[in-house]
C-alpha cells in the first residue's frame, strides 16, 4: 500500500472537482491509499512525512518545489511546472535542447520574427485565452514582457495533443480550431482520437525524455504544406481530461496505473 497525496489548490479544484474525485478513486483502487488534500501555504508544514508520491494539480511552482524536496515522486516535476506555465521559457528551453519549436520572442521584440503574420499570446496564458493573429505591420497590442509573439503557422489550427503518462504518450487527440487560430477546446475546437504518425511520435518521445515522467500533454502541429513535419507548439503541465472522458477514455485510471509503475521502479 502506498500513500499518495493528491494535491489541488482551491482554484483548480473548483474547476475540476469531478476529475479530482476520479483521480482519488482510481488512485485508491490501484495503490490502496490516497489522501486528497487542499494545500495552501498554511497547510504545507502539516503534511505527513511518510508520503511516497504526490500528484499535483496546481500551477504554483513554489508549491511544486516544496513538495519535490520532501516527497520521493512528485508528478509533475518543478521543471514541468516552470516550463508548462511559461511559453517563452518553454520555447527557448526546448529549442536549446534541440526540439523543433516556433520561434517565440517577447512581444516587444516582435520585429525579430521574419514573418508577415504573427500570433500574439500571453506568456503565462492557458486555454487559448487572448491569443490573437496580427499582421506584420501591427505594433504589438501588449508590448510588455508578459506577452509573446510567434510566427503564424498556417496549419496551427490543427493540433495533435499527446497525453503523456510516465514518459510515454498514451493517447492522442486531434484538436481542430473553429476560429481558424486557436485549437483549444475552451475556444470551441473539435476533437477526435487519432493515431500519430511515426514522426510525431518520435518528436513527442524526444520531448518526454527531456521532461521526465509525469502526467502532462505535448501539443504538436504540422508546419509544412503536407503537415508531415511536426513541431512542438507547447507543453501543458496540467493536462485536462474533459475531452478524453468525452471520447470514453478513462484517463484517471491510466494516470493511477502510471504512477503505480513509477513507484514500483
Amino acid at each position, binding site marked *: 500500500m502506498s500513500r499518495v497525496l493528491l494535491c489541488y489548490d482551491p482554484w483548480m479544484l473548483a474547476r475540476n472537482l469531478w476529475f479530482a474525485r476520479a483521480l482519488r478513486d482510481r488512485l485508491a483502487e490501484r495503490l490502496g491509499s490516497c489522501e486528497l488534500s487542499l494545500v495552501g501555504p498554511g497547510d*504545507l*508544514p*502539516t*503534511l*505527513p*512525512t511518510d508520503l511516497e508520491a504526490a500528484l499535483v494539480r496546481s500551477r504554483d*511552482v*513554489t*508549491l511544486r*518545489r*516544496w513538495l519535490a*524536496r*520532501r516527497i520521493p515522486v512528485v508528478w509533475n516535476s*518543478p*521543471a514541468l511546472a*516552470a*516550463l508548462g506555465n*511559461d511559453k517563452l*521559457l518553454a520555447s*527557448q*528551453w526546448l529549442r*536549446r535542447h534541440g526540439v523543433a519549436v516556433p520561434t517565440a520572442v*517577447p512581444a*516587444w*521584440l516582435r*520585429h*525579430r520574427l521574419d514573418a508577415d503574420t504573427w500570433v500574439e499570446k500571453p506568456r503565462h496564458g492557458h486555454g487559448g485565452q487572448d491569443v490573437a493573429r496580427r499582421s506584420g505591420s501591427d505594433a504589438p497590442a501588449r*508590448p*510588455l*514582457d508578459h506577452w509573446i509573439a510567434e510566427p503564424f503557422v498556417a496549419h496551427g489550427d490543427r493540433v495533435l495533443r499527446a497525453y503523456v503518462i510516465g514518459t510515454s504518450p498514451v493517447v492522442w487527440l486531434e484538436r481542430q480550431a473553429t476560429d481558424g487560430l486557436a485549437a483549444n477546446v475552451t475556444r470551441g475546437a473539435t476533437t477526435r482520437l487519432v493515431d500519430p504518425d511515426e514522426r510525431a511520435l518520435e518528436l513527442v518521445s524526444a520531448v518526454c525524455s527531456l521532461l521526465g515522467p509525469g502526467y502532462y500533454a505535448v501539443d504538436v502541429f504540422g508546419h509544412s504544406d503536407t503537415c508531415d513535419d511536426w513541431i512542438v507548439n507547447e507543453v501543458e503541465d496540467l493536462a485536462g481530461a474533459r475531452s478524453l472522458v468525452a471520447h470514453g477514455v478513462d484517463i484517471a485510471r491510466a494516470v493511477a496505473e502510471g504512477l503505480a509503475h513509477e513507484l514500483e521502479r
Partner: protein
Amino acid sequence: MHLTVPPGASDVDVLIVANLGLGPAFRANASLYLAAAQRHAASVGVLNLASDAVDLTRPPRARFALILDKDASTAEALRSNGTAVANSPEAILACDDKRRTGALLSAAGVATPHTVLLPPLYPKQAMDLRALEEAVGALGLPLVVKEAKGSFGSQVHLVETMEDLTDIATSLADKRLLAQEFIRSSRGRDRRLHVVDGEVVAAMERRSAHDFRANLSAGGVGFPYVPSEPERELAIEAARAVGAVNAGVDLLIDSHDRGALVCEVNANAHIWRLSAISGVDVAHEVVSRLLVTR
C-alpha cells in the same frame, strides 16, 4: 511527525548572496531578486555579506545561490558545499578584473575596442614610459585608461595627452591598468544588454551629455532600446566568453565599420534601473530561467 519549513538561510531552495550594507541601490537590487525568488522557490534565504560571516568548515547550503556580489570566495565556498551558484566564481573573477575580461574576450574573438595591457606593477615599481609610448602608438590619443577593478564607471579615465597619461599611469602604477582605444562615436553613449543563460532578456541605451561615460550612476540617462540581431549575438558571445550566465554586457557604438564593440561584462550588474527603463521584469527572467531544472 510532520514536515517543517526549513529554518533561516540554511538548506533553502534559493540563497540570495548580496552585500546589503552598501546603500539603497544595492538593497533595491537585492529586493527585486528576492521577490522573484519568492515567486519561484519554496524557501528563500539571504546571505548578507555586510553582516554574515561564512564558516568555511560548514558554509551555508542551498539548492541554488544567486550571487549578486563580487565575492568569488563566498561563491566558491557555497559551491564546495554542493550549492549550484550563478555566477560561478570563475565568471565573477573574470568580470571583476577588466584586464582578464579583455583577455578572455579577445581570446574568444569577441569584438572589443583595441586594448593594451599596461605593465602590471607592484608597489615601489615605477611605470616604464616606453610602455606608455607603445600604448599611444597603438591606440592614439585620446585614449581610455581603466583600472582593473572598478564599478559604475569609476576608475575609468579619459586621457587627452601624453603628459596626462604619464601622470595617471604613474599615480596609479600599482592598480593594474589597461589602456583602450577611445570610441569617439560612443562618447557619452552605450547600450546595456542583460544576458541570462544565453538569451538577451532586456536592454537599454544610456546617454550622458556631460561625461564620456554613460553610466546611470554617473549621471547618464537610460532609454528603452531594442537591440539589433548582431548586438544580441555579440552580447551573448561576450557572456559566454567569460562564463557568465547572468550578465550585464555594455556595448559601445562604433559608427564606422565595426558596429558594436563590447566595453565590459558585469557579473553582478544592477537590474533595478534596467527593469524600470525596459519594462522587463529582469529578476523574474533571471530566476525563472536559472531555476528551471533545479
